[in-house]
Each structure stands twice: as C-alpha cells, then as structure tokens.
C-alpha cells in the first residue's frame, strides 16, 4: 500500500472542522506518511489556508465547484474517487459527514473500508471498536491495494499549527449527478462551545423530565463554559434536539470533563464518553450503571444538587 494518504476535509465553507486535524494525526501514525488534504468547496481559499497550517500536512488540494457548496455524498464521492489513483489510504472523519461520504467513495472504488479507526499499529494493522465499544478489533489489511477509512476522532489529538504546506488547485473531470438536492439544514444556534470539541460537557438524561428541566443544565453549562449533551432517552422524549445526542448512534466525544446528570448509563451511551478524561455522575439511583465508569459519583436529587453546584462555583 502506498504511503500517500488523502484526507477529505470537513468544513462549513468558512472554517475547517477540528475533525480534519484529528484525521491528520491519525494519518501521521503511519511511517513515512505523505499527507494530502482535499478541500471540496464552492470557494475553498479560507478553509485551504487553515488546512495548510496543520502540522503534518504535506499538501492541500482545492477542488472548487458551485456544486460543492453543500457536502452531498453523491456529488463529492465521484470527485474523491477521481483523485484517488495515487493514494493507498483515503481518510475522512467518523462524523456524519465522513461516514456518509467515505463508504460511497469505497463503493465507487470497490475498495474495502475500515470504519472508526481508533489506532494505527502499522501500515497494515489497525484497531477499531465494534459492538458499541464492547470489543476492540485488530484488523490486518495485507494485500489491500487501496483502503478507505473513517477516523474515530475521539481517539486522536488534533494536529497543531505548522507549515504552511503548499496549496494547489486540482481539476476534476467527472460528471456530477443532479439527483440529490440540498434543501435546508436546521440547527439551533447558541453561543455554547461545540459539543464534539468542547473541553467540558454537561449531559442530561430522561430524569430532567422536560425540555424546561434542561434549563438548569444550560445555566450550569454557561457558568462552566461547557457544551451541553443529552442521552438518547432525553432526545427521544423531546427534551433536547438530536444534535445533542451522545453515544453509539450520536456523538462520540472525549472532553476533559464529562458530567452526566440524570443519565442511567446504558452501554450505548457509555461508548460515546469512555474517552472522557474525568467522568462525574449525578443520579438518584445509586445502582445506576453510570457509576461503574464515573470517577466521581454523587447519589442525590439533581434538581437540588445542580443549582447548588452552580451557586458554589459562582
């Protein structure tokens, strides 16, 4: 397998997503890796400049096309595939962007994919969690000419500042489909840190009782400059929007501090937080499984404890 690695950048048109810097660190785990970051955008200059400044990046390619304004997998995948020839490994982040796109790229290239790479042991040995993190699998890729992968971002530090690496425009001659059309994206805007990259995260579960109940979490989060997450149960109940869900089918995060409030700790939730540096659990049920993984546990009524914590740190 060639040590030429292509990373597909995730961005919103202006800012490079931190997940890309984590892919760079993952790629650098391969000896003699030559790392190229590809930026697909309507106008790529700002994002390309940020990518070029990441340490460990050898080259940035920009592929500008009005069709690339929204990251549609069906539109991006043929362009990624058209660039793929020199690369032995094509990586994207294991975010909804990367998971949607990279498997389509793998399908076009007829190349196998490793999802959620959590460690690179050698050029042909990778590790990844399976069964919601209940087992860690080592995979050998010997004989695979071209491999596609998604990177479990919680397993890697973001690459720091370096470079800058050269930025080149790439021309991709490939017909783009019009069968998939972007309509809208709705996301609640708030000033809190991004859940996926925040150093501190406070999450609530069904015990919060209502969307209103979450207000005591938001209030504490603002004091701590923390992001707010939620368990699947809380999202299913409509107490919090889907983008706040933490766990196997939500976001996998690795903050310095994770505070689980009124969350029992189903295995699917725990898989999303097991890389947190310190886990704090507050729950009225002392037998809740969350206490098995918590560094600090407090059995008590969250509606008394949470405002009390906020008062004590004010």
């Amino acid at each position, binding site marked *: 397998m060639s040590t030429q690695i292509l990373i597909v950048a995730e961005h919103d048109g202006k800012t490079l997503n931190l997940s890309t810097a984590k892919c760079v660190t993952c790629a650098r785990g391969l000896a003699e890796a030559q790392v190229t970051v590809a930026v697909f955008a309507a106008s790529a200059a700002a994002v390309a400049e940020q990518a070029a400044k990441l340490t460990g990046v050898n080259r940035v390619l920009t592929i500008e096309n009005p069709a690339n304004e929204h990251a549609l*997998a069906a539109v991006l995948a043929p362009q990624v595939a058209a660039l793929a020839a020199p690369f032995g490994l094509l990586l994207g982040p294991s975010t909804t962007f990367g998971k949607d796109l990279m498997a389509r790229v793998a399908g076009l290239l007829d190349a196998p994919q490793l999802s959620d790479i959590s460690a690179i042991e050698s050029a042909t040995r990778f590790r990844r969690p399976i069964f919601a993190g209940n087992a860690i699998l080592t995979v050998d890729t010997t004989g695979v000419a071209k491999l596609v992968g998604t990177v479990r971002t919680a397993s890697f530090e973001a690459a720091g500042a370096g470079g800058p690496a050269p930025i080149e425009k790439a021309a991709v001659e490939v017909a783009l489909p019009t069968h998939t059309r972007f309509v809208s994206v709705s996301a609640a805007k708030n000033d809190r840190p991004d859940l996926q990259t925040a150093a501190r995260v406070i999450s609530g579960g069904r015990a919060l009782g209502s969307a209103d109940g979450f207000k005591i979490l938001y209030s504490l989060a603002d004091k701590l400059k923390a992001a707010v997450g939620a368990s699947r149960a809380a999202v299913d109940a409509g107490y919090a*929007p889907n983008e706040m869900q933490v766990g196997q089918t939500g976001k996998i995060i690795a903050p310095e501090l994770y505070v689980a409030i009124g969350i029992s700790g189903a295995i699917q939730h725990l898989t999303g937080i097991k890389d947190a540096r310190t886990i704090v659990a507050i729950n009225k049920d002392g037998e809740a499984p969350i206490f098995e993984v*918590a560094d600090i546990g407090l059995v008590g009524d969250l509606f008394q404890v949470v405002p009390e914590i906020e008062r004590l740190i004010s």
Partner: protein
Amino acid sequence: MKRILVGIKRVVDYNVRIRVKPDNTGVVTDGVKMSVNPFDEIALEEALRIKERGGAEEVVVATVGPAECQQQLRTALAMGADRALHVVADGIVEPLVAARALLKLVEREQPLLVLLGKQAIDDDNGQTGQMLAAMWNRPQATYASKLEVTDTTARVTREVDAGLETLDIDLPAVVTTDLRLNEPRYVKLPDIMKAKKKPLDTLSLAELGVEPRQQLKLVRFEAPPQRQKGIRVKDAAELVEALKKKGLL
C-alpha cells in the same frame, strides 16, 4: 410493480451483554439470542408504513448470510413483508460483498426504494447502504429521521452532526434509517403463523455472480480497557472540592 426492498442483518440481540472469547478470536455467540438488527427493523417498519399509505405495492426483505438468517427473515415476514430473499453466504460477509449482492437483487427486483439500517450493531460498519448507492449510481440519504415519498422523488430529513438536514432525492434511491424514524411494531402470534406460508427464496452468491471476497483479516478481538473505579461524594460541596483538587475548576 411499486416495490420496496429492505436489507436486514442477523445480529446479536441488542440486550445481550457482549463477551469477548478467551482466545480472542471473536465474541461469544453460542446460546446467545440473535435478532434482526434494530436499525433494519426500523427500515422495514418504514417500508410497511409506506405500503400501508399506498406508496408501494410490495415489500421484499433480503439478507446476505448463513442458513440461520432464515429466522430473521421469518420475523420480517411476520412483521408484514410480502416475501423474502435469502442470499446464502457463510463466514464473514464484508460490506462490499453485501452491497454487491444487494445490487444484483436490485437489478432483478427493480425497487423504487431500498431501505436499510444506518449500521449494524455488531460490526458498527455503517457502509452497506452507501456502497450499494454508489454501485447502483443512485442517490443516498443516510441517517433518515423522516421520509416522505412521492411517485418520483423523496424528501428525507437526516440526523447530522449540525442538526437536521433535508434533501430531495430522485427515485429510485437508497435510504438508511436512524433511530427516531419510527417505532417498529410488535409481531403478533397469528402473523408468525401466516409468515410461515409466505415465499422465502434462497439464492447463492455464485448464482448472483458475486465473489465472496474477504479482504480484511480479523486478527484479534479484545475486551476494552476498563476505567478505574472512582470515588463517591456525599453532596455538591464535596463534589466541587473534588473537581478543584483535580484542577478541573
């Protein structure tokens, strides 16, 4: 005929506590309850609802896997699928092989929609739907939490990291389902009896012209590292103290 093809996978049941085998060659599956992958159950439920609303005339369920998968196909038939297709394959079925086999079924069945779960809860790959869409050269909408189908297009709401994204896609297309799309129905006993009479066709990979390639070698399964047991504090004040001691406040 307006047809929906639903891909399902037999997996270790959601509620089973997973244990890695002592010799690290896999996870324990002997005597363990097996089920339809929960995300695929949601895909099937959605297909049945579309049919019940008049948006399709037939729901065909398909799987690629060993002989035992027939149990899960029967469950799907009991839920309401009209017929089942079993592509028999032993050993590890990599997503490229599953997608290639499903593509062959798509060519035979000409569905207007293929529905699958967004990932299987055993290998957590999350690849088959996208690979099928790529090989078929048709649209994909992954992580669907809402699906509105018309004659020639579908509007899909997707759960993405930023929030909810809405796409319009031309049919035929592949849609993979997320948890909040619907709540699958329970199977009733009379339906289980009825399902025994529904058609279940068996095919082989060779008949479909699909090579059973395994390109990724599964070297070793390990239990994940356990976190150290923590401390208990009795109130908010002690908690704040403990956090300060760790330098977190």
